[in-house]
């Protein structure tokens, strides 16, 4: 095992116009008969060789429990770790002393989709999801509130999830 040094020699042969051009054209021509690799995006969303990875970090989703309440306990870890400071959390407490978020908002415009919020969430409540098309007509619509986050239906990223043991 060694790291060598290799001096790059210029090709000894004279550079050529005709020969090189013809060779290049022959090669390009052969490429015409290869399988096409372009994906016709809006019509075609996945091909047999590519689908969006299950680890994809995209639009957020808040998971809910059986009664439809969000799993979040307003612990405050995700607003703390978020490097883009885009999570707004106001904690509240119900009669039984359970903490829940009064306000939970994510500004998807500021978000950098690093997934740290999902990585730190101790309740597996907030998730980044396998979804990327989120165009809107108004800026204000990019601030996702708790209701909107809970209403998302796309699958969640398998990173930091027990279903993907290699994803930690």
């Amino acid at each position, binding site marked *: *095992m*060694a*790291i*060598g*040094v*290799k*001096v*790059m020699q*210029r*090709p000894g*042969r004279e*550079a*050529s*116009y005709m*020969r*090189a*051009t013809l*060779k*290049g054209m022959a*090669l*390009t021509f052969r*490429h015409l008969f290869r399988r096409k*690799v372009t994906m016709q995006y809006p019509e075609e969303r996945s091909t047999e060789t*590519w689908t*969006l*990875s299950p*680890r*994809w*970090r995209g639009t957020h989703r808040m998971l809910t429990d059986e009664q439809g309440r969000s799993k979040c306990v307003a*612990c405050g*870890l995700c607003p*703390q*770790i978020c*490097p*883009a400071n885009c999570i707004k959390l106001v904690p509240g407490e119900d009669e039984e002393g359970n903490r829940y978020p009064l306000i939970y908002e994510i500004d998807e415009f500021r978000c*950098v*989709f*690093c*997934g*740290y919020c999902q*990585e*730190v969430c*101790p*309740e*597996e409540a907030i998730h*980044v999801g396998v979804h990327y098309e989120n165009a809107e007509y108004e800026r204000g619509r990019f601030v996702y509130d708790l209701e909107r986050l809970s209403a998302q239906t796309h699958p969640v*990223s398998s*990173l*930091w*999830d*027990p279903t*993907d043991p*290699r*994803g*930690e």
Partner: protein
Amino acid sequence: MTTRTVEFELSTPGVDAAGRDIRVPLGVPGREVEDFPSEHVLINIGPQHPATHGVLRLVIELDGETVVRCIPHIGYLHSGFEKLAEYRHYNQIIPLTDRTDYLAPMSNNVCLALAVEKLMDIEITERCQVLRVIACEMSRIISHIVWLGTTGIDLGAFTPFLWLFHQRELIYDLQESWTGARLTTSLTRVGGMMADVPDGWEDGLRTFCQGFPKVLQEVDTMFTNNAIWCGRNQGVGVISQADAINGSLSGPLLRSTGVDYDVRKDRPYLGYETYDFDVPVGEHGDNYDRYLVRLEEMFQSTRILEQALDRLAGLRDAPMNVADARVILPPKSRAMSDMESMIHHFKQVMEGIHPPAGEAYLGIENPKGELGYYFVSDGTAKPVRWRIRPPSFVNLSALPQMCEGALLSDVIATNASVDIVMGEIDR
């Protein structure tokens, strides 16, 4: 044209020591700015010019078609990364590094993790080292692909661009299935990685390693002996060995002059000294040698990837993250079930990691040259200062020297061959 116009064009606003507004003249320092002869023309390339590879502006003084002076103006993409980092925990800086050299995000992530680990004196695991080598070499390949493809376009060859970008897509797909993002990978964490590669991922990379050299051979057929390619590149943009060393250049730009300096070889990190590969060097220091060096580096990277994959197979069940509770979060399932891990998890997230007071510099061989991260810590969870040594910034400073005296069309070829990325220059 009068002298007043020239002064205006060749200066930039600034403040002096007393805070007054002044105009700072641009140009090579220490050289007298001669009068601007009336037959000379000043032209502006960029910042929105496709051939400047980003928002770079070149002000060029021309005598006929000969470049008399070339002054790069930078700063259009300034994002204040270094300052932002002073308000973030060490792990929170990782998403920022994705966006400096955005053509090789994974190797920036690796450099940051290595620099903080040096600050904290952490020894990473063997599996983590191999994974990081894979990340670095994948980045080298995609960065060189972008360089080769766009340089081809600048010089009028469109076809290899399409072939190469297909290969780049394949790496992006692998990147996506590993990290969950195509560009903003945020792959590393201090002391480990964000995630291990998914099952079966290695096969995908192996297939890539088999197919990629064939595509490179095709590109070699198209370019290496082509008279147009040779004519536009050989003897153009020459820089001498002494100038390259004096200018502190690094990467393929330095190696094309014949200096065999490669951080992987001279100050090995991540166990690079145990891999088998060659460092290609040129002889003439011109654009053509830079092409040969980068082309060969892609072959060598493929070689390193294959060796790393073999090692990874042997380390299948080895741990990836260090067993150091100061830096690594407990596994998610443990944090959710066991009280002690839960408290540890909270403390870790809320307070961040605390390196000892001190400073550390770590340089790695990025695709574009030596990338260095320098941290100053005062013992708190946030760095006092984070300084990036961006290879492109230093390399760009050689551009005026390489262009002056050449023709205008050579500026495009030379600028392309320096291989800059503006995210890193303006940072």
